[in-house]
């Protein structure tokens, strides 16, 4: 069994049957859910500025993929990046500070919700232009190849990105040069309000890999262990010079596309069917089937997270705000 280590130090290097490792994955998934719910509250309450794109329901994709990466590997993300950031090991505090526009935020308050990132932790600030991260990730992978470095980059994007020219151009070049990039498509059935059925003749996104001459697979994106296993395979192939790999992770967005979206375009039966396949409940069931995990263990994880977020919110609301002098800094290197 391959061992994995988590760049953000959430999970100790351990086989994926190890109790502590599995609980670490669970902790990350719940952390993302609780973080997002708290942010939603702060936003609706009117205390948090800006706009938000959230990932409730999609936590397992971020956590499963990032758990297959090593320190030194990178991810690229999108406008919907809070979960990716937490999975990659960015702290609750640096994210909340960023959302409140504070100088202590991961991008000094200059990025905001759509541009979360921290290069020290292997995350490029979110690219909010749909598919804009794909050629960029391929370029990072090209650099690793030219520099003869063993790193890989996992590039997160949505089902909507597949229709962009940037997808085709970036993916094709990654393919012809066998670049170490794991193309992670979180297929949540919608690009903004538009269902994939309306904008794709072949809705099986992983099929596209074959037409470029590399491997793709479709995975249950709400099963964190399935995502982890697929991501481990993909990362291994990329490191062995056999990239890229396209992972299509089937998942569902439980909340609005962005602020104040009531999701009236999502049919009720579809929502209910996916809610019944929630990644947290499902993983909890897997864990509780083990003789060494008790409901109290999971409750304790959640309670600890709630407390951590509570403190972080208070800190973020008092975090230092930028001054005029900061406005013109950071434009050039």
């Amino acid at each position, binding site marked *: 069994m391959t061992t994995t280590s988590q760049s953000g130090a959430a999970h100790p290097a351990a086989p994926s049957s190890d109790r502590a490792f599995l609980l670490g994955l669970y902790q990350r998934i719940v952390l993302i859910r609780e973080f997002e719910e708290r942010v939603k509250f702060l936003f609706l309450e009117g205390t948090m500025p*800006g*706009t938000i794109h959230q990932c409730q329901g999609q936590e397992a994709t971020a956590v499963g993929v990032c758990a297959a990466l090593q320190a030194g590997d990178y991810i690229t993300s999108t406008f919907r990046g809070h979960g990716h950031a937490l999975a990659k090991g960015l702290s609750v505090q640096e994210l909340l500070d*960023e959302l409140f526009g504070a100088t202590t935020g991961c991008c000094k*308050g200059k990025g*905001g919700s759509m541009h979360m990132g921290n290069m020290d932790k292997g995350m490029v600030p979110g690219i909010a232009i749909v598919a804009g991260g794909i050629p960029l990730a391929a370029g990072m992978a090209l650099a690793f190849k030219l520099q003869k470095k063993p790193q890989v980059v996992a590039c997160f994007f949505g089902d*909507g990105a597949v229709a962009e020219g940037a997808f085709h151009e970036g993916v094709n070049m990654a393919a012809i040069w066998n670049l170490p990039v794991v193309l992670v498509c979180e297929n949540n059935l919608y*690009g903004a309000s*538009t269902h994939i059925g309306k904008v794709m003749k072949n809705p099986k996104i992983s099929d596209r890999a074959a037409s470029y001459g590399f491997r793709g697979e479709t995975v249950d994106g709400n099963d964190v262990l399935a995502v982890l296993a697929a991501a481990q395979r993909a990362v291994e192939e990329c490191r062995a010079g056999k990239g890229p790999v396209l992972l299509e992770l089937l998942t569902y967005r439980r909340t609005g596309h962005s602020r104040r979206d009531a999701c009236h375009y999502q049919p009720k039966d579809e929502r209910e069917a996916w809610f019944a396949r929630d990644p947290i409940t499902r993983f909890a069931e897997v864990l509780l089937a083990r003789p060494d995990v008790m409901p109290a263990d999971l409750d304790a994880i959640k309670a600890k997270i709630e407390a951590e977020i509570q403190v972080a919110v208070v800190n973020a609301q008092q975090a230092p705000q930028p001054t005029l002098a900061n406005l013109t800094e950071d*434009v050039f290197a």
Partner: protein
Amino acid sequence: MKRQGIAEALRDGIAEEMTRDSSVFCIGEDIGVPGGWGGAFTVTLGLSEKFPGRIIDTPIAELGFTGMAVGAAMMGMRPIADMQYGDFLFLASDQLINNAAKMRYMSGGTIKVPMVMRAPIGATGRGSQHAQSMERYFTGVPGLKVVAVSTAYDAKGILKAAVRDDNPVMIFEHKLLYGSKGARAEPGAVDATSDIPDEDYVVPLDRAVVRREGQHVTILGWLLMAHFAAQAAEQLAKEGIEAEVIDVRSLSPIDYATIGASIRKTGRVLIVEEGPKTGGVSAEIAAGIMEHCGESLQAPVVRVASPDVPVPFSPILENAYRPDVARIVTAARNLTKT
């Protein structure tokens, strides 16, 4: 006569043009989805029910749907393309600049491209990639007409004129001007409602408009800055400074007849632009003023614009970035003293 905001006025304008002319259709992302939003800013809300098959939802493919609008226009249709955020025009710009703008000329005057591209702009708490003032990148492209609408009356009249024009027309709209009330109103939104006549009307694509008369200084602005300029003028009036406020509105071509008449009267001009100063439309206007009526200036042209930085997220920085009423008042006051 009815009171409407920009989003509603545009919606009615589109509906009326679609009713009048069966070659008019809309194309863009999330514009007609049942249960959806009618575009990011509700402009096309309800139109897909009214005009089945003529509100076309596309994949997320700006270059593609813009090119399709150009092609359809060449074949006799009159597409109204919807760019969800102006920032994505960078993806579409090849089709706009290399194809739409040049088709007439390259074909020796045989092809026409009667299309409209609508795009919202403005710094509105969304960070660097959903905020840019995009009009600067399209003014000065030969073959494109560029307009910017700041009131509901203009929005409807200009939309109609653009649809009826035989050339590619880009209409810039501002996120803070679509509507200042209701569920999707933006924080910081400004009231841009107008009394809209019941009868059909158009607003020409090449005219600036004097919003307020005054004799001491001319203030030029467009979109949100036209409103801020008008607010600044009210404050200046309390100090005894009478500013003439002109909504430039037509950015390509620029209406130097209206602008020049004002400057010949006031002798002083302040240009306000939301985007960064360097390379802005205000630079073009300043140069044009020198050519058209430079001899009437009693003081050098002054500009208030954003600093040359990307749009920051943090509200404190964003507010410092975007020109505001106070900066306009100060600049105008200083200008009248020179």
